[in-house]
């Protein structure tokens, strides 16, 4: 079944980003949220039908290895829904000037379109285009905070990001040079003969490093603490919550479809372990809540890389659980940290100023650590049981890393919770100033409250979510079905002669 509505995932947000200069003010402000709502509805619809069977769309009606293909399985559909919902929750409603607000809203919509495109694209070069689109919109939003520090950080991010894009493009070029096609399904079909050798692996590692920049992979994640400490909370939440997950999803897809090799998995495993160790220990050392959250997000993505390195659908299920959990928790934490920047010591007593904010922080922190009834526990449980089932000792070592870093995570997060409920601030020199600074605005509380509601809903529904999660992982792992759907037998034989 081909589904022409699939293209709207990309087309609607872009249309809403382009059109505002032509429209009067009132409609202009509604256009973006409306487009995102429609995409969210489309995501729900797609998720429901793809749980039964994946759908694909040949853009422009050109038969698949020639034109670009969108492929939506239940994983992609869920990410389409998540992109639209999270962007909506983090929507920039207010700006300093009307012009700048227009620009920020346009960039946010472009980012949403790019993320949706990354989730559904079935073509390697198309993935690169959407990745680059997400990157450029991300630079604009990160620099849009307006402070000099944000601009300096964004400039460094731009340089590293461009290097990453270049490496990824080089990897894609090598693959095209070797296999003569860019279609993921066609590549999956041809890979055993053409790409499963050192040449193909080199191309994969280049793409891994390149897309790893956005996925906060170890070695290329140095931008993250600076950006997240200086950009607006909303933007940090978008970059850490959404963009990193989509880059991760693309890498996981590539690993499953084209490079299901032990060497590729090993690289993911080792880089993931290093990312988890460095991230969590750096978060432990961080003296500023935003940097601490940034390092912790590097650690969490390291855990997701470890999970995706486990062969089979067990690993995919664990990776998806970790990625989706982080997608819910980290944006909310960044929202809460908006007014809590600066040294950790300044947080003392903040719980008295905004008890609800402090309670939300505690909830998200507990889930991040993995305290049982919360979803974070199930994510880590899946990861550890997946690791324990592997015969290789390296996987056992990774399990040890996960346990040790969980302890570290618990220590630094509880330190912050303790600090929030401490008693210094009320008696410090400038209580007036402090009160102004630390009380969280209602919009922030509403935003992170919505994330908390989602998190609790997932916690309550956990027993009913295991089956769909397993189904999603199975679907994502089934590369034969992917090839069969995108390239029905006639097309394959014709294109490969």
């Amino acid at each position, binding site marked *: 079944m081909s589904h022409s509505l699939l293209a*709207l995932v990309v087309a609607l947000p*872009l249309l809403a980003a382009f*059109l505002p*200069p032509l429209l009067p003010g009132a409609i202009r402000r509604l256009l973006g949220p409306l487009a995102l709502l429609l995409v969210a509805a489309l995501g729900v619809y797609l998720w429901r039908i793809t749980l039964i069977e994946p759908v694909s769309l040949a853009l422009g009606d050109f038969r698949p290895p020639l034109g670009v293909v969108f492929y939506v399985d239940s994983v992609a559909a869920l990410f389409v829904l998540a992109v639209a919902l999270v962007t909506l929750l983090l929507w920039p409603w207010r700006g300093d000037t009307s012009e700048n607000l227009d620009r920020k809203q346009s960039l946010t919509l472009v980012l949403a379109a790019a993320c949706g495109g990354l989730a559904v694209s079935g073509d390697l070069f198309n993935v690169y*285009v959407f990745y680059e689109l997400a990157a450029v919109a991300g630079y604009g939003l990160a*620099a849009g905070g307006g402070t000099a520090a944000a601009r300096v950080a964004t400039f460094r991010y731009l340089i590293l990001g461009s290097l990453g894009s270049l490496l990824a493009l080089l990897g894609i070029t090598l693959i095209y040079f070797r296999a003569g096609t860019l279609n993921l399904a066609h590549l999956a079909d041809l890979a055993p003969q053409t790409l499963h050798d*050192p040449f193909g692996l080199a191309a994969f590692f280049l793409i891994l490093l390149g897309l790893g920049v956005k996925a906060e992979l170890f070695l290329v994640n140095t931008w993250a603490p600076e950006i997240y400490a200086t950009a607006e909370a909303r933007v940090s939440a978008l970059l850490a919550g959404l963009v990193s997950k989509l880059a991760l999803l693309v890498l996981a897809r590539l690993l499953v479809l084209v490079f299901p090799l032990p060497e590729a998995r090993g690289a993911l495993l080792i880089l993931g372990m290093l990312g988890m160790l460095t991230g969590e220990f750096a978060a432990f050392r961080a003296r500023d809540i935003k940097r601490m959250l940034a390092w912790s997000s590097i650690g969490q993505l390291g855990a997701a890389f470890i999970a995706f390195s486990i062969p089979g659908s067990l690993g995919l299920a664990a990776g998806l659980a970790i990625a989706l959990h982080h997608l819910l928790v980290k944006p909310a934490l960044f929202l809460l940290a908006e007014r809590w920047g600066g040294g950790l010591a300044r947080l003392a007593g903040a719980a008295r100023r905004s008890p609800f904010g402090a309670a939300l922080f505690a909830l998200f922190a507990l889930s991040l650590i993995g305290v049982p009834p919360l979803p974070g526990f199930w994510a880590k449980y899946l990861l550890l049981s997946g690791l324990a089932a592997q015969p290789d000792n390296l996987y056992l070592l990774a399990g040890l890393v996960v346990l040790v870093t969980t302890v570290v995570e618990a220590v630094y997060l509880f330190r912050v919770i303790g600090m929030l409920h401490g008693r210094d601030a009320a008696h410090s020199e400038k209580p007036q100033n402090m009160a102004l600074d630390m009380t969280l605005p209602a919009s922030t509380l509403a935003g992170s409250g919505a994330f908390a509601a989602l998190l609790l809903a997932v916690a309550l529904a956990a027993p009913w979510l295991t089956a769909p999660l397993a189904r999603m992982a199975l679907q994502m792992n089934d590369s034969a079905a992917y090839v069969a759907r995108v390239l029905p037998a006639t097309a394959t034989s014709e294109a490969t002669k």
Partner: protein
Amino acid sequence: MLTRYGTLLFAAGFAFLLFVLFTSQPLGAPPMLAGQALLDEAATTVGAANIVTAVVLAYRGIDTLGELSILFAAATAVGLVLGSAHRTLGAGAPREPGGFILRAGVDFLFPLLLLVGFYIIVHGHLTPGGGFQGGVVLAAAFVLPVLARPTETLSHKAMARVEGLAGGVFILTGLGALAFDRAFLAPLLGPGQLGALLSAGTLPVLYLAVGLKVGAELASLLLRLSEDEADA
């Protein structure tokens, strides 16, 4: 010091990796599975004499939409960074118009540049060129007069309107295919006669939108940078 050696080491290692990769491959005979199939059928299926255009707008039209959006995002980001910071600095140095020869030269060039730009755009499906190249020429046509007479700047608002309209036309043309039960960005109206000005279906419409969008974006980007320089 250490970072400099590190960078050097990385560059050397990277060069060595590329050298090894490329020497390990046989020269001159890459498999062209998708490429050859495209060359064989593009002219008859799409009807564009310029096969590059058939690939850019038809087979990989979604990539072109992405590239357009990247340009849009870059221009918007520059507006966000420059628009908010330097407004408060005031007008800066007074701007003087250029000399007589410069002004007369620009007046002479303006219509020619417009003609060449639009020619390149509307023949994009027939000859080398197209929306991106023609759009750059159009941007030059509108930036030159401002360089000659800095007092008369173009309205950013008007440029944003052109840009929005062009982007909207591209996507709506693509969505129009849905009404005929075709997929997004499928070329409509049939391929027509190969080599005729009115051929290749809706591709010329798409290229016109690309050209206007690229032209408006690039012109407003250049003008914003020049305004910023004058202000600083």
